[in-house]
């Protein structure tokens, strides 16, 4: 029985990666929930716009690297994030101006908006692939690890090692800062309050002099920031492949619905639940139980509930359970 080793093993292979993945999902799901509560439609272009923003960041990173700029030990990509936000912000605002605004004006049904976002998704997808191709691009540089397996072992003297990759550490810290900032913005600033008012009751908000176009503008800008951050962090962690970003759509939606569409806190909680469920069910627990069980009783199988290929099935199962038993989500889908 070596519970400490078991804890280290489970942290190394499951808890820390799931925490990082959950943080990336949370940033994306926050964007989905914001768009849903202000513009009132499910934004299907979310994954692909995330890929476009990340592509811009990668372009910026290459430019900076060519200029010899570096902020080692941190990855250069962090410096390029403002550029990515600028590009994606302009892109989303242009999409709003040329696509969504018209449907808002004619008060189209929500499904028409979804369809339009499908068109935007197609176009965005094409643009991203024009620049980046379909293969995997890695753009992580700087120091790779905060501490490595060997350092950890030497330091603690345990048999089981643990590593913390810089990308994971940066992800978790950044996500925390962004979430706090977003809640401060929504609850304390004038613009944030007007957004909440608008999502609560559109007509009353209009009567009290809130400019709807301004609210929409702020929403897209915040979405751009969230998307570029989420995409860059995901890319630093796992590499950039446009198709993976498209596939993130399902877990992000599942997280937003699980938390309750329109509730930012719900989106964050939902994202971590989805991430931990995906990782926990597709994780091979053999090693961990090997440390926990008394000697001679170690498990012989992999103790893996489902193969990794089925991680989307886990997400989907969560979605189905929510839809069946609590369609309003954990936080009752309270609008903002």
């Amino acid at each position, binding site marked *: 029985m070596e519970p400490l080793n078991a804890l280290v093993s489970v942290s190394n292979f499951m808890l820390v990666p799931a925490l990082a993945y959950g943080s990336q999902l949370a940033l994306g799901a926050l964007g989905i929930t914001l768009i849903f509560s202000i513009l009132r*439609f*499910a934004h*299907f272009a979310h994954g692909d716009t995330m890929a476009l923003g990340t592509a811009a960041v990668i372009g910026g990173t290459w430019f900076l690297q060519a200029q010899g700029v570096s902020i080692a030990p941190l990855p250069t990509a962090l410096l390029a994030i403002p550029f990515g936000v600028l590009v994606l912000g302009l892109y989303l605002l242009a999409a709003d101006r040329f*696509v969504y605004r*018209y449907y808002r004006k004619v008060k189209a049904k*929500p*499904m*028409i908006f*979804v*369809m*339009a976002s*499908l*068109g*935007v*998704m*197609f*176009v*965005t*997808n*094409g*643009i991203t*692939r*024009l*620049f980046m*191709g379909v293969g995997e691009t890695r753009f992580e540089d700087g120091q790779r690890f905060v501490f490595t397996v060997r350092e950890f072992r030497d330091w603690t003297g345990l048999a089981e090692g643990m590593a913390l990759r810089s990308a994971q550490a940066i992800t978790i810290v950044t996500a925390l800062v962004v979430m706090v900032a977003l809640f401060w913005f929504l609850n304390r600033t004038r613009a944030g309050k007007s957004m909440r008012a608008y999502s609560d009751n559109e007509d009353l908000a209009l009567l009290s002099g809130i400019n709807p176009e301004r609210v929409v503008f702020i929403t897209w800008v915040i979405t751009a920031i969230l998307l570029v951050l989420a995409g860059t962090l995901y890319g630093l962690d796992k590499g950039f492949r446009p198709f993976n970003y*498209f*596939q993130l*759509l*399902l877990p992000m*939606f*599942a997280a937003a*619905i699980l938390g309750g*569409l329109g509730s930012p806190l719900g989106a964050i909680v939902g994202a971590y639940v989805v991430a931990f469920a995906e990782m926990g069910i597709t994780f091979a627990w053999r090693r961990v139980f090997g440390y926990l069980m008394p000697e001679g009783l170690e498990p012989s199988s992999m103790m893996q*509930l489902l*193969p990794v*290929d*089925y991680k*989307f*099935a886990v*997400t*989907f199962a969560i*979605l*189905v359970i929510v*839809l*069946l038993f609590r*369609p309003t989500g954990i936080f009752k889908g309270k609008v903002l």
Partner: protein
Amino acid sequence: MSLTARDLGLFAIMFAVLALVATFQSPQLAVTILNMSLISAIMALGVNMQWGYAGLFNVGIMGFTAVGGLAVVLIAQPPVPEAWAAGGLGVLLGLMLGVATILAAVLVYKRMAPGKLRGLAIFAVLVVGFVITSQVFGPATQAVQAVNPASEGYLGGAGLPVILAWPVGAVFAAGVAWLVGKVSLGLRSDYLAIATLGISEIVIAVLKHERWLARGVNNVTGIDRPVPRPIELQPLPWVQSLAETMGWSVSQAASVVSGLGYSALFLIVLAILIWLAERALNSPWGRMMRAIRDNEVSARAMGKDVTRRHLMIFVLGSAVCGLAGAMMVSMDGQLTPGSYEPLRFTFLIWVMVIVGGSGNNWGAVLGAFVIWFLWVQVEPAGRWMMEMVTSGMSLESELRRHLLDSAAYMRLLTMGLALLLMLRFAPRGLIPER
């Protein structure tokens, strides 16, 4: 309602363009485009039932077509006796245990009073059931996959005529659609979209991963065809004389004839479906569906069970997509789970429906022809354009190479633009609903 002169004109233009392809590019290409257009037209018909009649938004078309494709393997492939001997019973027993677990959980949910105890009981049932199931299922699938893995390693099919797989594919897709619809219909309309997106990813994951079922990513090839292969047609005298009169090579003539055989089969299916769909759309049932689509609240006030009707049309539409999926696999003669991509199989069909005219069956068919034609032809056009643009650059230029490589993605962009422009400026499509 029949077609107007304008609609017939649009179809005539489309076929004239295909004839031009046959003359100036190659007759095989024209036949390939025609066949895929026919299949796409059937998929578009299915989607049009869901969206055009009832306003249901299905983004899992890929999953339903793939399930239909699976039916072809399960029906037409010869069974593998060694694999059945090695683990066939275990696999079946495992599947049954899995279903029994879920049923037991449902039973517990229905019988016990709500509370923490019920939650715990369901959890216990699921865990115990899962452990038992995997104990039976795991070794059995391992045994099956170990049988001659280079060419078999799966249970095989029923060895029945391949045409039979088409209706079976429709039934498979209908079953999956019923499950999804049961869960997500009756809630917010976007939930169906998200649920179908999920199920289609899972269907593909299952097809890729469960090698005992249809060999997974190793693909099943050489499936029986309902039409003679070109190689069997080549020695026939009438094919040879056809080649002579048209000035084609014999192999070219044989593949054109074989392709046209498929076209004939597909046309029959399409004609039956259109006839049925038109009859349904103009019956009291069709009027009720459209009434529900246009105003759910008032339809409900008139005593219509909206959720049940939605479930019905969702299952019907998905069945049509499954049928098309089965037809596609039997045309290719192979099931390649790796080739199912959502952009190609889900979103492209949507572009077809919107461009053609949602709510109109003929519109969906025309849309399928136009969009599939563009999908095939835009890539060479994009490459040609890129070559024109980059012709001034030096041959080794990095940028030039990159631009030429990227020409393939031009078509995603073009399709997206087509969808957005149609939705904005001609939301009723080429052949509007009447």
